[in-house]
């Protein structure tokens, strides 16, 4: 949620060690927050400070000594006496594989942070060269934003802000399973037929170029600003003509004379 309840130190702090640095944080803190407090950077993809953490992308996994599997640090809470390694060989290999699979199936050309990570973790997406790619068509069904799910990394932020994190509109959600999972509306209806109110909060939190304002999209395609104006207005509710708002003839003449 956007407003996080503060932990008022009613209980004693928890002591743990992250990458050899002893740190003391209040109970309930996630390993990610504790690490950031200690100045250790853990890479994240789906985690966003202003939406609920779900541990979906698994990029933030860390190695907690004694635990069976790697823990997603954005949701795993600190435990007394834990010894955490944020960049062990096992963790690195896990992150590398995730990034390689993402880079080989999804178009990451508009997510510079992810591209940096691909380089940083020495990824070789060409390992999965002949694998299936996610290349759905761009969905352009409304005058304000486009959805290009070939760039979608399924971080779930858009779904969350559409639901309980901000707008409470519930217009979009996951659809399909496994590789075919995609963010979609109810029965893949156009957005204009759903409960969407076009607040664009999903566009605001999208970490890639999957959700984009239509004007921005057209501008990138090299459409002239004047033409964008016409296109977006024409696709609206039809109240506006190409020339803009209906004006008094006299009034329009006055503007032209000016």
């Amino acid at each position: 949620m956007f407003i996080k309840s503060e932990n008022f130190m009613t209980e004693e702090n928890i002591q743990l060690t992250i990458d050899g640095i002893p740190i003391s944080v209040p109970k309930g803190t996630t390993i990610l927050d504790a690490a950031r407090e200690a100045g250790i950077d853990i890479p994240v993809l789906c985690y966003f400070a202003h939406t609920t953490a779900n541990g979906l992308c698994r990029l933030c996994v860390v190695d907690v000594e004694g635990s069976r599997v790697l823990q997603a640090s954005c949701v795993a809470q600190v435990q007394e006496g834990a010894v955490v390694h944020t960049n062990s060989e096992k963790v690195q290999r896990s992150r590398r594989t995730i990034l390689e699979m993402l880079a080989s199936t999804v178009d990451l050309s508009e997510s510079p942070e992810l591209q940096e990570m691909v380089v940083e973790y020495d990824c070789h997406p060409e390992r999965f060269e002949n694998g299936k790619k996610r290349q759905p068509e761009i969905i352009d069904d409304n005058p304000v934003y486009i959805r290009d799910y070939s760039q979608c990394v399924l971080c779930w932020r858009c779904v969350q802000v559409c639901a309980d994190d901000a707008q409470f509109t519930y217009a979009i959600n996951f659809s399909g399973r496994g590789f075919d999972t995609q963010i979609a509306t109810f029965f893949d209806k156009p957005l204009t037929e759903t409960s969407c109110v076009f607040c664009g909060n999903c566009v605001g939190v999208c970490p890639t170029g999957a959700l984009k304002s239509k004007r921005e999209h057209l501008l990138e395609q090299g459409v002239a600003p004047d033409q964008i104006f016409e296109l977006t207005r024409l696709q609206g509710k039809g109240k506006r003509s190409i020339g803009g708002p209906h004006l008094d003839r006299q009034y329009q003449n006055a503007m032209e004379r000016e």
Partner: protein
Amino acid sequence: MLKADRVVHTTCPYCGVGCQLDLHIREDLIFRAEGRYDNQVNFGQLCVKGRFGFDYVHAADRLRKPLMRSSRNEALQPTSWDAALDTVAKRLIDTRDQYGPRSVAVLVSAKCTNEDNYILQKFARAVIGTNTVDHCARL
């Protein structure tokens, strides 16, 4: 992804909430509005108007000067702000003097700040002398 030449921190002009936003500008053209997370007003959220409603800024038929006509039969002519405001002030005072302060009512706007609204009600009460002041947010 388009890169902005400059990013301007501003307040949304639509309603009285005052959401904080960043306007991304490229070649003097606004192409994106983003909510800011560093405030206690909107926590990064925006509505459809704040996020997508900046068309009017670059609209070709946007009013950029006051228009005035001396009678209803004439066409509107562009004029200066000084001339327009002088006319409005003179006509308001004439109306007040001729028909009394109760002939004027003031309607203020939810798009204005508290200070703007305060000064308008002050104007209605102290200058015009009427208490018929209302606000469009009273539904």
